[in-house]
């Protein structure tokens, strides 16, 4: 079974600064996918960024980037130029590559607050 751990229950950052959210996971799989989802106060969960384990290059989406360390089983999210709209709970999630039917295993979540 897979496990995902987010060790930071809460984080805060000043507007325009950079913040990094941590995520570690445990799996015996070699091919898999990793995701960061954002859940703002509206509760609408949306995908922030995804990483395929067989790709060595770290994924980037505008101000969001990841640091994927496969050997260390680490998958951190960096948010640059933080904005007030980034205030949300962030979940790290794992999906097996095959026969998973899209099932996700989530971490505990990190509440991020961006201060003006």
């Amino acid at each position: 079974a897979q496990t995902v751990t987010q060790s930071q229950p809460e984080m805060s950052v000043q507007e325009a600064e950079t913040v990094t959210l941590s995520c570690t996971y445990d799996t015996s799989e070699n091919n898999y996918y990793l995701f960061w989802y954002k859940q703002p106060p509206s509760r609408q969960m949306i995908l922030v960024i995804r990483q395929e384990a067989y790709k060595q290059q770290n994924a980037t989406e505008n101000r969001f980037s990841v640091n994927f360390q496969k050997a260390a089983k680490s998958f951190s999210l960096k948010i640059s130029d933080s904005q007030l709209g980034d205030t949300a709970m962030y979940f790290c999630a794992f999906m097996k590559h095959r026969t998973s039917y899209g099932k996700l295993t989530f971490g505990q979540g990190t509440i991020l607050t961006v201060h003006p």
Partner: protein
Amino acid sequence: DVKVTQSSRYLVKRTGEKVFLECVQDMDHENMFWYRQDPGLGLRLIYFSYDVKMKEKGDIPEGYSVSREKKERFSLILESASTNQTSMYLCASSLPGGSTEAFFGQGTRLTVV
């Protein structure tokens, strides 16, 4: 816009009641899921379905059942609600295949009294 719609945002039920949580998606997705979200535990998978009338248990199926009679609709059933089922319930859907994005509903906050 893709959409996953849950029938209620807030629900209060009494212990022992049979509770139905409904979820509808308009994206023709094969996969549908019910997750439960609790503070400090993240989201945990209750049940999922990869086709009409097909269902499989997730990590915490005890006390729950599901129904998928039509492709677009996936219902979560609490046969006899208990106070430990007070939680946020999230429905999601996705296309088959790896790395596909899951689309979520806005959640139903269920309180069992």
